[in-house]
């Protein structure tokens, strides 16, 4: 073993209790950081997945400007064949076409303005969880059937049930008057109030007939197996757009800007707290290392007199801190993984998170997952600040004078 390394290791265990107290502070901070960050990342992942799974998908093909203006005439032409050809080209992705219009939906005694979506009943269940959330009746079937499924809140507001008829009034693609009578075949309950109050779905063929779409629609929804896979496939989808078309492909970020903002806001408030924790730990290390350097002044005088250079002494102190930091890193990371895994198996329900849970369609019990990133990120920052904190005592050694140092006791 290198002599500086040996000295560092021995010095570390010279004051066992002090070393363990410092390591304990690091370990506590690291365990907490790993757990909290793993929890956050797990929540964010769920938030994103659940929100996108409900209706939005990982990406959508739309006409330019549609995302912001939602004008009826910003269409995707020949949308069903387009979706079919993409399906053939991208077998791993789930793909479904939709049309969207606003209409006045009237029951016998009430009327509400709602969003009507034309869907492909065959493919819609692959990109959206709404078809699976039917709590009464069934989902729409066939291409052209004049059937409709509505959200639970809307059904209650309209005072309708399965088998009742709704009259839809709106305007078609060409601006002409569009009207139809459709039969309610199912009621879904997603738990997201906005969706359950404002959305109704009918087969895409019927939608195109009612609103004079001439084969067009408004969005092709695409879901990849994972978020990462979605990011990877996006450029390929862009490349597969029909030549000469001006269609655009939006990723989930653009489709749900609120989602990322909510995550960012949550993250920055959390990271502010973590920052304070890290600084507290750094000061405790600074205190320990400064004390340990000061009390060894005499000894440092000896080794300098024997021919150790100030730089080597500085390295000694940094090495001691590195060892200290590594022990804290490893123990803290292990502690964090264990704690996170416990809640990975048993789940965690967070008091006070019900509102956020409802907004982002989260389950009330979350099963946490520790990823390499969530485990390493917190302890790494602690480690870095630990080294920074030790730099001051280490640099002081450059000013040490061997004879004066040996005089002190």
């Amino acid at each position, binding site marked *: 073993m290198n002599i500086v390394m040996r000295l560092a290791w021995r010095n570390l265990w010279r004051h066992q209790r002090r070393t363990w107290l410092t390591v304990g502070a690091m370990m506590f901070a690291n365990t907490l950081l790993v757990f909290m960050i793993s929890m956050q990342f797990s929540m964010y992942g769920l938030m994103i997945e659940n929100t996108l799974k409900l209706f939005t998908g990982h990406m959508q093909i739309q006409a330019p400007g549609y995302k912001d203006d939602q004008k009826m005439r910003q269409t995707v032409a020949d949308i069903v064949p387009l979706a079919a050809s993409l399906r053939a080209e991208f077998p791993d992705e789930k793909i479904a076409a939709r049309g969207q219009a606003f209409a006045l939906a009237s029951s016998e005694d009430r009327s509400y303005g709602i969003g009507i979506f034309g869907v492909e009943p065959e493919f819609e269940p692959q990109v959206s969880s709404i078809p699976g959330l039917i709590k009464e009746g069934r989902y729409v079937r066939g291409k052209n059937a004049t059937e409709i499924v509505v959200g639970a809140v809307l059904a209650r507001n309209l005072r309708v049930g399965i088998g009742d008829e709704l009259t839809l009034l709106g305007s078609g693609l060409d601006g002409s008057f569009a009207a139809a009578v459709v039969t309610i075949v199912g009621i879904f309950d997603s738990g997201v109030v906005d969706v359950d109050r404002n959305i109704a779905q009918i087969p895409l063929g019927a939608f195109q007939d009612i609103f004079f779409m001439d084969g067009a629609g408004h969005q092709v929804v695409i879901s990849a197996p994972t978020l990462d896979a979605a990011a990877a496939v996006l450029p390929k989808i862009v490349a597969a757009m029909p030549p000469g078309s001006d269609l655009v492909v939006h990723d989930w970020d653009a489709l749900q800007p609120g989602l990322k903002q909510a995550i960012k806001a949550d993250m920055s408030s959390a990271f502010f707290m973590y920052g304070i924790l890290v600084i507290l730990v750094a000061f405790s290390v600074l205190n320990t290392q400064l004390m340990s350097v000061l009390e060894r002044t005499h*000894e440092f005088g000896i080794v300098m007199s024997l021919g150790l250079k100030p730089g080597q002494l500085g390295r000694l102190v940094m090495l001691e801190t590195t060892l200290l930091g590594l022990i804290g890193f490893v123990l803290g990371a292990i502690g964090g993984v264990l704690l996170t895994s416990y809640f990975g198996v048993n789940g965690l329900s967070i008091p006070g998170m019900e509102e956020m849970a409802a907004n982002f369609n989260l389950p009330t019990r979350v099963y946490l997952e520790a990823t390499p990133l969530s485990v390493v990120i917190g302890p790494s920052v602690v480690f870095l600040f630990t080294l920074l904190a030790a730099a001051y005592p280490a640099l002081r050694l450059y000013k040490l004078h061997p*004879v004066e140092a040996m005089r002190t006791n």
Partner: protein
Amino acid sequence: MAAVRCVDLCKTYRQGDQDIKALDHVSIEIEPGGFVCLSAPSGGGKTTLLNAIGGLDMPDSGEVWVADRRIDQLSKGALAELRLSSIGFVFQAYNLIPVLTARENIEFVMQVQGVPAAERAKKSMAILEEVGLKGLEDRRPAEMSGGQQQRVAVARAIVSRPALVLADEPTANLDSKTSDELMTLFTELNEHHNTTFVIATHDQRVMGYAKRLIRMLDGRIVDDIEQHAA
């Protein structure tokens, strides 16, 4: 070439409103293979002079040359290098490294020099035997008597065969028999390896071994005599 040359060294300490001349225009020249005793009453400037020669402390004025190299203007790093490679120190207080065992203390300088482990072990075990500490190699300083610690310090200073050994009261804690053994060891090194010794001491017995005796008083050299070993 001189092993050590001091030219007109002065060093003044301020204590309260009093100036203490620890070195007062000291000039000496020591040949390679010299065996010199510095003797002075307490406070006479012995330690100050040894520290100046070893580059541990800077004089206020004057020049210090070691092996024909002027050292009072070298950087801290260069001085450390010089001490590591060619000077062995025995300090007035034992000054061992508390976390290292006797043997590790002795091997310290060689380790920093990068001497291979096997060679280190051979040399340190041999020197432990020579200073009469065989069997104590794994003790830490706190587990040894003052005299034993002193001998470890001596062993550490001479084990890597430096060209110059500066020893400050090396026999202060030793009984007369052990002192004699130590001085015999020094004499042998001096004769066989031409190691230059500068030894500060009060001890009449130690002075008897010296080839040259320099007496100081209040920072000045008052006497400088060649003598023949008893």
